[in-house]
């Protein structure tokens, strides 16, 4: 199967300007050599802590940012350097859902106008056809038809996120980049939205890049998961494999840090010390070594490459082979 989206060695370095001449002496290496692919109809979960570059990566893929290196190809054609005019047809196929449904909806437009806009921009359909499509979209995401003439503030957080989803699917895209789509929602509402997203994926054969920091949520919706740390992917595997046989020490501590809603479980957890370092001056060698419980001399100088450690399972750690042996004990 040819992948729908293929990202190769993608880099997004933001200049940090300072001084009286406003020169950029440093770069924020938000995304620093990421490769990944997503197949049609598949969900790739992208997990990491704040500042790891996961949102930047998502924005590069929808080309809200112009990446500074590497390539992105969609459906076999290179989209890395498309000019704004040439991006318009692409946007029919790649859409985005944002975290904060209040800030991502124009508060001065009615829901009808918000949902009609993508159709207008793409020049699709005449007035009545567009109106029919808006009604259809509202129906698909489970909002009443009378929502058309209402404004975003009249809706709750969960309903606003449904509007955001309706807008994203308006053009029948093939890939949706979802940036923390349920993080701002309450637990009981979160499950409603997750169910809707899974249903839509089955119905329209959508592919998702699902970006989130909550590993339990990501594991629930994803076929495969990639773990990101300081601008790079440190481990990637199928969801079940990643959860049961995590190799990378960072993935393991991430899994171990998740609070489990079961008072009988009394796990000794590996608590990481320290914070995520700044992506402006990442540590030499493996970026994770200052926090890693198993770091050796080599980890301080040499960045480990992402190596195959099992079927469709890659991990970037010098100690991959030694860690493999004890992998079963974490499951």
């Amino acid at each position, binding site marked *: 199967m040819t992948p729908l989206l293929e990202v190769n060695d993608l880099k997004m370095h933001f200049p940090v300007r300072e001084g009286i001449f406003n020169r950029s002496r440093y770069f924020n290496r938000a995304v620093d050599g990421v490769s990944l692919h997503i197949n049609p109809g598949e969900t790739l979960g992208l997990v990491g802590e704040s500042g790891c570059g996961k949102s930047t990566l998502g924005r590069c893929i929808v080309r809200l940012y112009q990446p500074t290196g590497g390539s992105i190809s969609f459906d076999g054609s290179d989209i890395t350097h498309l000019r704004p005019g040439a991006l318009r047809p692409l946007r029919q196929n790649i859409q985005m859902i944002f975290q904060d449904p209040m800030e991502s909806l124009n508060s001065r437009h009615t829901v009808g106008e918000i949902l009609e806009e993508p159709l207008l921009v793409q020049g699709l359909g005449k007035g009545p056809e567009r109106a029919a499509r808006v009604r259809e979209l509202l129906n698909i995401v489970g909002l009443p038809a009378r929502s058309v003439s209402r404004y975003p503030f009249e809706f709750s957080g969960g309903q606003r996120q449904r509007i955001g989803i309706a807008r994203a699917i308006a053009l029948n895209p093939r890939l949706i980049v979802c940036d923390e789509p349920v993080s701002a929602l*309450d637990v009981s509402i979160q499950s409603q939205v997750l169910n809707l997203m899974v249903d839509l994926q089955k119905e329209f054969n959508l592919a998702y890049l699902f970006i989130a920091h909550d590993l339990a949520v990501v594991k629930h919706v994803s076929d495969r998961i990639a773990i990101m740390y300081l601008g790079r992917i440190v481990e990637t595997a199928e969801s079940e494999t990643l959860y049961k046989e995590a190799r990378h020490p960072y993935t393991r501590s991430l899994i171990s*840090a998740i*609070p489990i809603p079961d008072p009988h479980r009394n796990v000794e957890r590996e608590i990481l010390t320290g914070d995520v370092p700044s992506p402006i001056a990442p540590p030499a060698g493996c970026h994770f070594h200052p926090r890693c419980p198993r770091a050796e001399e080599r980890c301080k100088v040499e960045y480990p490459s992402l190596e195959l450690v099992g079927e469709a399972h890659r991990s970037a750690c010098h100690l991959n082979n030694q860690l493999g042996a004890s992998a079963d004990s974490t499951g």
Partner: protein
Amino acid sequence: MSEQPLLRVDQLVTEFDTDEGTVRALDGVSFDVSPGKTVGIVGESGCGKSVTALSIMRLLPQPMGRIAGGNIRFRGQDLATLTFAEMAHIRGNHIGMVFQEPMTALNPVHTIGKQLVEGLRLHKNLSLEEAVKQGVDILDRVGIPSPDIRMSEYPHQLSGGMRQRVVIAIALACRPALLIADEPTTALDVTIQAQILELIKDLQKEMGMAVMLITHDLGVIAETCEDVVVMYAGKVAEQGSVYDIFDRPAHPYTRGLLQSIPRLDTQPKSRLSVIEGMVPGLRDLPAGCRFENRCPLASEECRQKPPAEEVIADGHRVSCYHRVSV
């Protein structure tokens, strides 16, 4: 629960004046916090969990908010009727508080040292040198590297996790008997959250204080709390030990919440069970049970009159006509 509680909240009613009239954010909330224990208050946004904390601390926004009924007994004294000066003596001294957002809880124009020493000097009458010495000690205790240097730094120079440690240090500086933590880890990453929760647990053991932990995360509750209070739309739906709540949930809302969270061991892309609809607004609350419009078991009785709280086992209380017996 035979021992004398440290804090007893009894039939607490808190109201807010708004442009469209008075709304009742808390309507008869009762629970106890025993000395040295951790009580979790869990619920969704708008259920009144933060208002409960602000009512206890007497920090309701003025002049809109007020305690309109019930009492809050802390070591036998009713906090609801104390004067401002009397309350100032309790706050920060006997009851410490940690807020969700560590950036807004700290004053950006004062050094960490100044904010830390302020409470110590005020409540403990310490000399400046003595207060600084204790301040450095407590910063060291909450795991801040080179605490003497950090004393002269400003909040923006610290990361989110470090800032939350400073807020905890300030809250604990006077060794309070009760720590109220309102979503202390919600703004933090999961690896930092684990550090902070562990720190609160350790300090609690060391100082023997009680903790009232407010959160929406059932995972955090299960791992840190002994007793749990489940709130819904300004009322307590169910309360009991952490085992009562997780093993024998009796209220349909508690059951719904527990079933709707994705867990690491569920089948990927399986359907999560949901609680249909959403929390009613405080202005159009149902006449009967507040969960009635979302409840799968709702009957005519539920629409008529709100259910009273019943004790179904030692310490396990539920407000529901159709409580599920386990």
